[in-house]
């Protein structure tokens, strides 16, 4: 049944969610990720000037973000450019409850409408 398949997905998704939560729970790492979201592609050097930590420390955070699929790197000459992968956040949106809420609200409107309608 549909409801069962939904539960199956939930349990497999939660592992993915846990990994994302662990990756983004670190405030410095999250700040780096948010900066990439806001500013677009950046080099390690530029990220370091804003992060308030050493370049090796920034690089370590970028490795973790990359492993989680949250950033992608692109090599150009000696520089490595990093960009955010917003699609990787998708599992964090509890889609099914959002859509359930959507239909619940619509059914509220529907009931209001039915009360106003004549036979």
């Amino acid at each position, binding site marked *: 049944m549909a*409801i069962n398949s*939904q539960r199956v997905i939930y349990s497999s998704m939660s592992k993915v969610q846990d990994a994302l939560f662990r990756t983004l729970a670190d405030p410095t790492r999250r700040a780096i990720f948010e900066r990439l979201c806001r500013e677009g592609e950046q080099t390690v050097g530029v990220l370091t000037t804003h992060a308030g930590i050493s370049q090796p420390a920034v690089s370590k955070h970028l490795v973790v973000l990359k492993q989680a699929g949250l950033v992608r790197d692109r090599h150009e000459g000696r520089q490595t450019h990093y960009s955010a992968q917003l699609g990787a956040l998708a*599992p964090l*949106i509890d889609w099914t409850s959002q859509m359930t809420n959507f239909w619940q609200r619509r059914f509220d409107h529907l009931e209001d409408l039915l009360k106003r309608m004549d036979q």
Partner: protein
Amino acid sequence: MTETLAVVVERDIPFPPEKIWRALTQPHLIEEWLMKNDFVPNVGHRFKLRGEWGGVLDCEVLVVEPNKSLVYTWNYEHQDAAYSLQSTVNFTLTPTRTGTLLRVEQEGFRPEQKQAYGGAKLGWKEFLGKLEQVLTKHSESAV
């Protein structure tokens, strides 16, 4: 095989199926509870649902069984595949002693398309705001 997600919402409504059917199939009534539309209750009819947030859903009527069952596609085209969506919405009306059991089942989302509805509606800024809340909630529940 591609796994898909489904959402089911059911509600007991103290009105007969015939009346609910009108609200599900007459465009000016659909607009009042769902979205602006050019719906016609004919199998194969293609129509659009226009959301308040500016999104347009492409739909096609698949099943029309008056007062019993209405099925249509609920698709959202987006150049970014992660936001695109192909789903089916299935309304079922079952008479009860006090009125009607109305059930809607929406299915067809793939797991990687979880953001199709929410992501299209929310910009990434709101998204990051939400993320903060989610993280807070998560760390609380982990304690």
